[in-house]
């Protein structure tokens, strides 16, 4: 990777207002996108954008976080922080992908799940847990792409893929650096320091085995010249999808299980008791 940015600088790029979002990636990489809305229980949470589209002529289900571009959109979508209804919409789309044997491509770009009163009352924890469980057991190919901010369980809910790719300046972490510093050191202003110890960059996560590949970005970030980023991601998706499509449905589920089963296996020790 050519550029040498600090983790804090990458966090800033990942959050850049002009950074391509899920809607941009759908426009650039897919054709004939049909947006599917609503959770079929009570509402449509726009912070999750999803539907059916063609990828090089093949029907796929796409699901991603949507931050929005205008102030109105930011407010309506809580800056890409889904409520339980958003995750339940995602579950509905995932089940349809399974029904119609369509691969799923997800785009991850959220500070985290929305921490609101109604979100809790409507079961934010249950919604995320159920999405994780559902996605883990599907028998279609699932490819997750972390495009911007991958914050907490709200990001992971769309991240249980056979392959997980990440843009070079995207970040993926257990919590935002500010939240991390606030919890661990009771001082949210130490977020830059948190960035340094959290191992949240694509290179760190590749080394930890959390992701499978990095999509390079121009030195100034994806927003400065998005076309080469789209082309690189397109090529990676074509390659990964071709490889996964060779697996049987049960092998796809087993492959995904094994991938996440091994998460943290190098983090274990033994202590006599």
């Amino acid at each position, binding site marked *: 990777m050519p550029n040498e940015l600090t983790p804090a600088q990458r966090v800033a790029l990942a959050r850049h207002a002009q950074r391509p979002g899920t809607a941009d990636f759908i426009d650039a990489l897919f054709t004939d996108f049909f947006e599917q809305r609503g959770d079929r229980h009570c509402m449509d949470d726009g912070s999750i954008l999803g539907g059916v589209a063609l990828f090089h002529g093949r029907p796929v289900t796409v699901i991603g976080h949507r931050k929005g571009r205008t102030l109105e959109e930011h407010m309506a979508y809580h800056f890409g922080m889904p409520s339980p209804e958003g995750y339940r919409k995602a579950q509905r789309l995932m089940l349809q992908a399974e029904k119609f044997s369509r691969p799923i491509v997800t785009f991850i770009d959220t500070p985290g799940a929305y921490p609101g*009163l109604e979100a809790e009352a409507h079961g934010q924890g249950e919604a995320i*847990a159920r999405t994780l469980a559902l996605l883990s057991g599907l028998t279609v190919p699932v490819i997750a792409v972390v495009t911007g901010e991958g914050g907490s369980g709200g990001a992971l809910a769309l991240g249980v893929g056979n392959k997980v790719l990440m843009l070079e300046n995207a970040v993926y972490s257990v919590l935002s650096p500010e939240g991390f510093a606030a919890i661990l050191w009771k001082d949210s202003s130490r977020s830059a320091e948190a960035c340094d110890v959290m191992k*949240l960059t694509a290179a760190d996560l590749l080394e930890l085995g959390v992701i499978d590949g990095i999509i390079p970005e121009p030195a100034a970030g994806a927003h400065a010249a998005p076309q080469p980023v789209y082309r690189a991601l397109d090529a990676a998706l074509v390659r990964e999808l071709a490889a996964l499509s060779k697996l049987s449905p049960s092998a796809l589920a087993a492959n995904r299980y094994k991938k996440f089963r091994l998460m943290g*296996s190098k983090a274990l020790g033994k202590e006599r008791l």
Partner: protein
Amino acid sequence: MSNVFAQRRQKLLSLKALRGASPTPAHTEETCPACGGTIRRRDLAAGRYVCPLCGHHYPIGAYYRLSLVLDKGTFRELDGSLTSNDPLSFPGYAAKLDAARRRTGMNEGVVTATGRIGGQKAAVGVLDSRFFMGSMSAALGEKVTRLVEYADKNKLPLILFSASGGARMQEGILSLMQMAKTAAALERFSQKGGLYISVLTHPTTGGVTASFASLGDIMLAEPGALIGFAGPRVIEQTIGEKLPEGFQSAEYLLEHGFLDAIVPRPQLRDTLIRLLKLHGKGGSDHAK
């Protein structure tokens, strides 16, 4: 290696509790944090650490919890030596882990075991909030996952008691990934017909709420337990207003449809026995 002795001593105390002996001196008194009343410790222990004046449920340790739930003499611990190896070399974490091990006599924030409940064999896991607040480490996620796989392999019903402050910050992204790992194991177990009873105890929050704790076929909670995904303070900061009384309590969750029942601690064992009987040996495929 002096902490080996400290650990042994703690472990002995824990095992003593498992055999039914009181883990605290019987002659002293203490003030209930909920009602402010004065209670003799002997009465508190006899009442399973539920305040006899107001019904407040004190947090209890994992081994003591197991002693309340399992048939006497049937406890067998699994993976008791599994621990974290500080995977990110996080500043200060190794020393803190060591201190927590010495203080609690535990190697991780969850005890997993097999035992019998009313004669029915079961796989049981209990999170312990004294160890790093029961936070999700790679080792905790691994122990829970192994327990689910053990229940699957041996066709046993699974019972998990959750109590957690959320993620283990010092293990960063690897902590987060345990949510996917445990949820995936439970999904497999469920697809094969396994019975999973999830019991939420005070407090169950963050990544544990958003993974294995919320995936039970049967969802139970202890009275007054705080249960939620986001912390109350984070929510107040986000919405800019005070939260209503009782928000994120077990009673609140029951009202909003996320629990089957709230079960006071003295009735928990009988409730589990009843539920296990109602499910045969623990689910359709597992009944044979």
